[in-house]
């Protein structure tokens, strides 16, 4: 069987809805045997601070107050946090999560400030070297 194409996601947005969407995509790809390559930039990187990863990061502006309430209710019902989904993805597949070196510099972060799920800090060229297929920007 030909090797399935890598799923390469750039996570830019740090709101919980977008992070959850990304985590679900990563889990599905990992389940189906695809390598997953996540690159954390800007507000997504900020959301991976170890002291704040499970805090409320809000939702996209397009949600509006009604959408935000709907998502809050959905989370309470399922009890599922996107962090858990990502951890499951890592448990079942080949999922690497790297922080963008430039964003680390902007936010004055070191690797030890981030959740242990983050494998390392890489430059953009290293990410591109791994991302042999299309890249999705969330």
């Amino acid at each position, binding site marked *: 069987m030909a090797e399935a194409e890598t799923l390469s996601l750039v996570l830019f947005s740090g709101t919980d809805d977008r992070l959850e969407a990304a985590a679900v995509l990563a889990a599905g790809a990992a*389940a189906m045997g695809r390598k997953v390559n996540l690159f954390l930039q800007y507000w997504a990187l900020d959301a991976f601070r170890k002291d704040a990863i499970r805090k409320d990061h809000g939702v996209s502006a397009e949600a509006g107050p009604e959408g935000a309430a709907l998502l809050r209710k959905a989370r309470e019902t399922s009890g*599922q946090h996107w962090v858990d989904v990502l951890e*499951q993805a890592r*448990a079942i597949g080949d999922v690497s999560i790297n922080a963008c070196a430039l964003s680390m510099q902007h936010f004055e972060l070191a690797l030890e400030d981030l959740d242990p799920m983050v494998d390392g800090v890489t430059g953009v060229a290293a990410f591109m070297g791994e991302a042999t297929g299309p890249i999705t920007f969330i």
Partner: protein
Amino acid sequence: MSTREIARTIDARGMACPGPLMSLIGAIREGAVGDVIEVLSSDEGSKTDIPAWIKKASHELVEVVEEDGFACFVVRKAR
């Protein structure tokens, strides 16, 4: 339900997509070849995801039983 021996039952009802599939994958990994595992799921996504994963991972979907508000997926670990 027939008389086949169920090695493990996972009650994933109430879990959101892709939770039930993730639980199944974990159970299959922990189980022995030939084990029959059943997953109860109320997640609509499971109806496509569990068969797709079983096909990809070369296990056997023994049957899917539709119950009231959930489905029961009976899976045999084939390798």
